[in-house]
């Protein structure tokens, strides 16, 4: 059971030598394999086929206090073939990457499609997509995290732990994850797309124990997972947002944050318990990204709206009639939400999605009104689109691709407004930093969120730290209570490194940008209990 305290390494693939497997597989070899699969699928009766040849590299360095818990380099290499036959999807995957096995997988995928076509209703309608020929795309990184020696990462994490312990932490766990997806996509539309995608996520969790009272409190890192290389770890002065605690944009100072976290955790042990009631909330981007993710990102996924996720993640209250009315007031006039698969540094930025669609940017909520969803090729016709919005993704070569969330971000306020000026106008409020506990219903109406640190605001001033805070609201009420958004200077990205969806469940990574935002009169509960 102890192992449950650690991330499941098997989910990241197979361990490999850290010094190997950095170079991608030769594009010529991949094209040959792809053509074998596409031809095999067509010869068995597929009307459409695509293949993804994937090499997924992960590095995971984990420490606690003075000790290294694990260093793992993993590689997962294989192919997945998806086909349309008799109007139905079929998929097969294998880790045997030979021409013979790739052809066999294509044939298996056709057999699966044909077996299921017998119980299929309407045939799949695929939005047209032009072939791009042979193209490539790469995350614009400065330092490849896989080329940074493991020792450098271990030393950094042990330093982080040391600083936290020196500043009052009882325990500290710290990690650095690095991801490199080397993906090759080819389809019968005539695309051969080679992509090299990088992500990084440094994080820690500090625990402060008060043995006498038996109480403990934690504070986790204010970092964000990013679509960047190791340069994310080198913060410059302009990346630091000063305030009640330093927050970060673009790049991250892990050592500085570890000190703040240890001090915050000690402060939390002594903080006063919140008085439940209505408060104006001032939400920092390090917190708000998760509220955006759960209450805007998920309900605007078209597959949820249509019922494809009904058996797992759920459906959505943002039904098609609300979108068709062109006047469904999702939020106040200040609320503008954008879907963007091209944003530099974000987790969702790629050149092309996993069904060969070039990535783009579009409005989801405009001046508070619901104007669009997130769709893929077999859904585009349902909302009158002539082409897909490029939201298709699979977590690995052995998983079938499906609709996943693009970066969904709240636009910064158009008028000049700083955090200090926003707080000055709050009479009774709570300023929340960092994401904590989160839960939302299966149609995305009722939610409850916690945070990392909570500051009480009285008559325009921060007067101290609070504990046991969670806010409960209804999505539409909440976004309609949005009364002010800070300007672009405060805009920062947060994000989810592992967003789960689908059956079998798959993980994806997605960013959410925002500036500090105010919501009026939100219901706050007290979460303290005795056992």
């Amino acid at each position, binding site marked *: *059971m102890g*192992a449950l305290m650690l991330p499941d390494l098997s989910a990241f693939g197979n*361990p*490999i*030598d*850290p010094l190997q497997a950095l170079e991608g597989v030769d594009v010529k070899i991949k094209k040959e394999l792809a053509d074998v699969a596409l031809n095999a699928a067509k010869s068995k009766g597929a009307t459409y086929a695509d293949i993804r040849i994937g090499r997924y590299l992960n590095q995971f360095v984990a420490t606690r206090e003075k*000790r290294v818990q694990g260093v793992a380099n993993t590689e997962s290499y*294989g192919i997945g073939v998806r086909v349309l036959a008799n109007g*139905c*999807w*079929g*998929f097969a*995957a*294998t*880790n045997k990457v030979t021409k013979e096995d790739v052809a066999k997988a294509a044939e298996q*995928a056709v057999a*699966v*499609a044909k077996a*299921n076509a*017998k*119980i299929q*209703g309407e045939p799949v309608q695929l939005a047209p997509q032009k072939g791009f020929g042979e193209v490539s795309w790469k995350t614009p990184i400065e330092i490849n995290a896989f080329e940074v020696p*493991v020792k450098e990462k271990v030393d950094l994490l042990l330093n982080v732990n040391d600083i936290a312990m020196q500043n009052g932490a*009882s*325990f500290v766990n710290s990690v650095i994850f690095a991801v490199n997806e080397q993906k090759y996509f080819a389809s019968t539309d005539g695309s051969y797309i080679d992509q090299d995608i990088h992500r990084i996520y440094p994080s820690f969790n500090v625990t402060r*124990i008060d*043995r006498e*009272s*038996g109480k*403990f409190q934690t504070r986790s890192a204010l970092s964000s997972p990013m679509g960047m290389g190791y340069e994310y770890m080198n913060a410059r002065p302009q990346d630091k947002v000063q305030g009640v605690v330093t927050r970060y944009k673009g790049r991250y100072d892990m050592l500085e944050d570890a000190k703040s976290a240890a001090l915050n955790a000690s402060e939390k042990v002594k903080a006063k318990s919140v008085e439940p009631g209505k408060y104006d909330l001032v939400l920092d981007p390090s917190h708000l990204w998760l509220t955006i993710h759960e209450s805007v990102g998920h309900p605007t996924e078209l597959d949820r709206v*249509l*019922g*494809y*996720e*009904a*058996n797992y993640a*759920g459906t959505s*209250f943002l*039904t098609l009639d609300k979108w068709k009315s062109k006047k469904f007031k999702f939020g106040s006039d200040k609320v503008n939400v954008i879907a963007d698969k091209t944003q530099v540094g974000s987790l969702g930025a790629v050149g092309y999605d996993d069904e060969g669609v070039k990535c783009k940017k579009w409005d989801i909520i405009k001046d508070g009104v619901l104007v669009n969803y997130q769709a893929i090729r077999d859904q585009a016709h349902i909302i009158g689109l002539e082409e897909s919005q490029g939201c298709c993704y699979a977590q690995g070569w*052995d998983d079938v691709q499906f609709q996943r969330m693009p970066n969904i971000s709240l636009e910064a306020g158009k008028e000049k407004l700083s955090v200090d000026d926003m707080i000055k106008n709050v009479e009774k409020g709570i300023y929340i930093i960092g994401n904590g*506990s989160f*839960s*939302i*219903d*299966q*149609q*995305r*109406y*009722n939610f409850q969120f916690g945070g990392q640190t909570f500051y009480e605001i009285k008559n325009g001033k921060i007067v101290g730290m609070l504990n*046991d805070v969670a806010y*409960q609201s*209804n999505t539409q009420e909440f976004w309609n209570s949005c009364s002010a958004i800070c300007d672009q200077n405060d805009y920062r990205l947060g994000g989810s490194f592992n967003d789960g969806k*689908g*059956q*079998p469940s798959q993980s994806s990574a997605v960013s959410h940008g925002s500036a500090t935002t105010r919501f009026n009169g939100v219901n706050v509960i007290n*979460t*303290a*209990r*005795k*056992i």
Partner: protein
Amino acid sequence: MAILNKEEAQAILKKVLSFSKAEFCEISLNGSDGGNIRYARNAVSTAGQISVMDLAVSSTFGKKTGTATINEFDDASLQKVVKRAEELAMLAPENPEFMPLLGAQDFEESPTYNENTAAMTPDTRAEMVGKSLQVSKAANLEAAGFLENSTRFGAIMNSKGLFAYNKRTNVSFSVTVRNQAGTGSGYIEQQFNDLDKMDTLALSKIAASKALGSATAKAIEPGKYTVILEPLAASDMLGNMFRGFDARSADEGRSFMSKKGGGTRLGEQLFSENVNIYSDPMNPDVPSAAWSDDGLKVKRTQWVEKGVVKNLAYSRYWAEQKGVVPVPFNRSIVMEGGTQSLEELIKSTEKGILVTRFWYIRSVDPQTLLLTGLTRDGTFYIENGEIKFPVKNFRFNESPVIMLNNVEALGKPVRTGSGMIPPMKIRDFTFTSLSDAV
């Protein structure tokens, strides 16, 4: 190729071990073969067939360990993976918590494998899903579901003579049935090692009946209610609690199992007297491998007896630190109950809420194990021993520790996930707000 028998697995592992030059060497070999169908809106949405096998080698010199894996099985590849693990071990920092390897053990064979499940094909799956779709289409309802089967094997061997092998099958099915207006929803899920126990037609009928019965739900005030939790709902809550039965985090003072002033709550009366929980990998209803990944023998373990905490899980390292015998955790959890059916529990209830399942459960406070989440897919008001009407879903904020102190009655346990869990009647369960979700 993906599923090897005991002798085939042993032969590969012995060969790999013969290539090792390390002080200690541990190898694991795993394979799986299976397929799935996902459906929604009464039609198939995705389906697949996946087969994989891989081998992992951990080599240790002193307390320095390196691990490497491979999924090719010719001699040259096997030699390469051993060499790579040994090179990594030389580069690795010392692990002060490294434990010497265990020698040969005598493991029992648990009843985890079923021939019929292993023989499932894409057509078997299509036929099973077809039965589910019959139910929803005939009643003018909409089904979304998932059927998956797998055959897996796992084997470990080390340079001290330890060898263990397990082969297992699993078939799992879940379906959500909704009415066309979107005002009613029902759900069921089930998994077995044995395909013959899986009846997708009967299960889909239960989900359909909940979809029809839960339509036009009324709103009632949130607050403290007596609840009857169906086994699935109870299991959702308890799964979060079992993860806290870890001695190390309790000793470190960061768990609900931590004692004020230091130490653990082992031996304390933490729950009602009618709470008894054990795990047993040989239980034919919820079998699992009789060995843990680090080669420990997994035996029947009593976790809670008459509400008293009888055991916590100890890793080999933590057990040595504390001078106790290591206790591996096991997922074959059985919570003992009574003989009453769910219907009988409802009959004995004056006023209460019947909960089919919970959704999106997250920890709010690890200190008290306070959890939040929502009811979903069939929530009903009970009065004078009868279901009176469906009610709108609630958000709860409740701790399973508090919940198991308020147990009024337990029914007959049934297979739920990887455990056996009874339906339960709990008083004073805390609902904090209403949800419009269906």
